[in-house]
């Protein structure tokens, strides 16, 4: 008899085997704040009790009778990104909200301190990824101030044109996500159809659909081409009607209106104290728009209105965006008619080395005022590159707005404020 072959093939069954241990790569910590769910079976609270550091934290993390914490965690269908809210609930009513940020912090400012000035434009795109050109714009403006560069008029018009297109796309997406957070499944898909058209247009022009990397110091990267103009022409011929139909899907919807009216009212004084900018500020009665308040580019030559409303509730914030879409279409129309000829890029040296100095520039993005403060030390990398994102201050109003409403209204308020976590967390 031949010798029996030993069972050399490993058994395929998992019977009797346990899951492999996770690799021991984490340093141990004694900090109770980080001991999350190590104790299996214990009652899991979102924040384990630890000595609180600040007044507000202490106030927030003390539960009175009948209150509970609900962790609307970073994984959630309607927090507009990775945002964690610790909500203190009394039944269904929100008593307080503590937003916890930083889940999308990428250290862009530090990275930009180690990048060339060209590279900064690329790095700064994914902040508010929904409307990427509006991050490049103030960066480029501040660099142009540092270098005393004059941007050709055609480039300015192209910047305004693409910016307004992107503003429309961002607002349409806002409408879609707003409806989705309230439960309507259809408007988000209509929004994406509209956005797809615009983004394809911009892809024909810039080469990318979402993170454009299109603006340059001294102009834009590449002139308008035939495909972009033909798509734009097609779109403009239908734009007004399509936008109207998408908007009226929700404007006259009884359920939508009743869920957003008088929810999250931000009054004028509070809006100014919070530093809110953009559509949220204009919905509270302050007609502050950087395009009019501190004009840049060719906006002084363009004719458009600043829609303002007084109520300050979520419905007003929604309606303001719809009005702004109409204004943007007007601006695009004027840009197309008044587009001058000429170069699209100023002539600059290859290596960008501004003189030492400081520059601040701000533009009006879809969510508010986007500002960039640059300090140059004479080398080819910025010494300090500070980005001021409007969504941070917009979101800061959430605890004040959501208190007293129901949990469902918290989602309405977040959706109406339109935060983009990429910009908030930088």
């Amino acid at each position, binding site marked *: 008899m031949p010798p029996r072959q030993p069972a050399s093939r490993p058994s395929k069954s998992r019977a009797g085997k346990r899951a492999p241990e996770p690799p021991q790569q984490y340093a141990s910590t004694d900090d109770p704040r980080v001991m999350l769910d190590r104790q299996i079976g214990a009652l899991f609270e979102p924040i384990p009790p630890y000595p609180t550091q600040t007044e507000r934290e202490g106030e927030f993390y003390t539960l009175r009778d009948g209150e509970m914490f*609900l962790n609307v965690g970073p994984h959630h269908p309607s927090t507009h990104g990775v945002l964690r809210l610790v909500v203190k609930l009394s039944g269904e009513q929100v008593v307080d909200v503590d937003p916890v940020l930083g889940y999308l912090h990428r250290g862009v400012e530090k990275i930009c301190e180690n990048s060339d000035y060209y590279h900064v434009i690329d790095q700064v795109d994914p902040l508010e990824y929904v409307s990427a050109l509006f991050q490049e714009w103030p960066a480029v403006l501040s660099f142009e101030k540092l270098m005393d560069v004059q941007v050709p008029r055609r480039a300015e018009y192209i910047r305004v044109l693409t910016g307004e297109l992107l503003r429309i796309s961002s607002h349409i997406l806002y409408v879609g996500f707003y409806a989705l957070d309230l*439960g309507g499944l259809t408007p988000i*898909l209509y929004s994406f*159809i509209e956005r797809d058209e615009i983004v394809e247009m911009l892809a024909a022009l810039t080469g990318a659909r979402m993170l454009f990397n299109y603006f340059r110091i001294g102009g834009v990267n590449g002139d308008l081409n035939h495909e972009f103009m033909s798509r734009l022409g097609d779109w403009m011929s239908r734009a007004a009607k399509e936008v109207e139909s998408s908007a009226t899907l929700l404007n006259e919807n009884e359920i*939508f209106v009743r*869920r957003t009216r008088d929810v999250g009212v931000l009054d004028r004084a509070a809006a100014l104290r919070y530093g809110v900018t953009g559509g949220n500020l204009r919905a509270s009665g302050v007609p502050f728009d950087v395009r009019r308040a501190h004009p840049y580019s060719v906006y002084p030559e363009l004719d458009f209105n600043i829609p303002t409303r007084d109520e300050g509730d979520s419905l007003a914030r929604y309606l303001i965006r719809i009005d702004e879409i109409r204004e943007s279409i007007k601006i695009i129309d004027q840009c197309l008619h008044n587009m001058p000829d000429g170069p699209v890029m100023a002539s600059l040296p290859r290596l960008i080395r501004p003189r030492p100095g400081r520059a601040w520039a701000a533009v009006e993005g879809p969510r508010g005022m986007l500002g960039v403060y640059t300090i140059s030390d004479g080398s080819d990398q910025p010494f300090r590159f500070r980005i001021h994102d409007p969504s941070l201050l917009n979101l800061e109003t959430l605890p004040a707005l959501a208190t007293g409403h129901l949990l469902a209204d918290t*989602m309405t308020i977040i959706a109406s404020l339109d935060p983009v976590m990429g910009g908030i967390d930088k």
Partner: protein
Amino acid sequence: MRGLINASIRFAKTFPREFWGRLSVPERVAFLLVPLAMGAAIVTVIAIFWLGGPVVDFLGANLPLVRFAVAGTAILLLTVPTAFVLIYLELKVIARMNLRVGPNRVGPWGAAMSVIHGLKVLTKEDFAPTGADITIFTLAPVVTYMASVMTLLVIPFAPGLIGQDLNVGLLYFFAMGGLTVVGLLMAGWSSFNKYSLLGGLRSAAQIISYEIPLTLSVVGVILLAGTMSMNRIVLAQSGSAFDWFVFKQPLAWIIFFIAATAEANRTPFDMTEADSEIVAGFATEYSGMRFGFFFFAEYVNVFIVSALAATLFFGGWTAPFNWPWTYNLNWFHPLEMGFGPWLAIVAFVLVVAPQILGILVMLFGRGWTYVQASVLGALFTLVAVVGLVALAGFIAFDWVQGLFWFMFKTYVFVVTFVWMRATLPRVRVDQLMGFAWKWLLPASLVNLFVTATAVVLLNR
């Protein structure tokens, strides 16, 4: 001798592990199942021969019991294809309303999507969250599902096709429908999760609030029909479409429809599973087949409220106009036709018709190969044969007609529910409750008083 014994002991010790370890999983399953199946077959055959006689005698003496058992089994089995069809309908209809296509890869026009969902749900890991109450956690989907399924017992699908014609059928229906609350509350509480708790409480509040307008609006129908038996309610609406109760009780119909949407947890009243706020509500911690049960229960719920709407207000299985004829197909004697004609028919159906249709496909289609065209031809032949049989049944048998009309009306309402889901956003919890207690309840009471007064006056 000793060597032989030692060798055999060693063999006995190592053989199992060596042998078993070398089998793959399907082989192991077969190794275990085949003897079991053979054993079971032998036991069954012996049982049939030994006990068969007395069992058949017993059943023959208790025909209602047999009928009930058959009806119950049929209903349980009916829920699964119903849920499958509804899931597919929902996916496709909502997709079309969203200007999308929906599933179109698995099966023709994506029709096998529901089956895939069912299989997927079966393959997921079965776990319960730490701290959950396992017993209640496991029982909750069962309770919800069974509560929904038990209501199907009293729905008249066709004349003669009703599970059990209770003379308090409608009361039984609402009693069973109310049991779903228990299941949802069990799920919400036992999941050890605040989202589930919120979802469970919301669902309990919602369903209880909307049950009262629902039942009160239906009392008008009971008064008009004079009975709670579903069969007799349908019979009270026979005649033409204008005998349907929707024309005699329009307010009750509106209240019923709104309350039924809330009972079935459908948009715009789907606060309980508001997936943009409380992730999945009471079902947050459920996965795998447990979630599958909740999923099925929801769709069965949609089916039963649509069926109820069709039965109570739209005449159930009655046709909208007087359908006088049941053509007699007695001239067709299949068993006496003889071998020749049967061979001709079978040959035609199996061979000739697919080829003819395949040739037509190749002529009028573009770029079909012969094999593809034959398969398409066979498919079309199958569809034609099924259609002919259905048509024959429709003409010949009144229960087929009744079933068709019933299903047609039910699916109209099902599609309406799906349509509402695609279109409307969600109503907030307090607005939902306010609406039920401040508007629907007084309206249904008003309707009740008016109907009762009218009935008394008209009977005088």
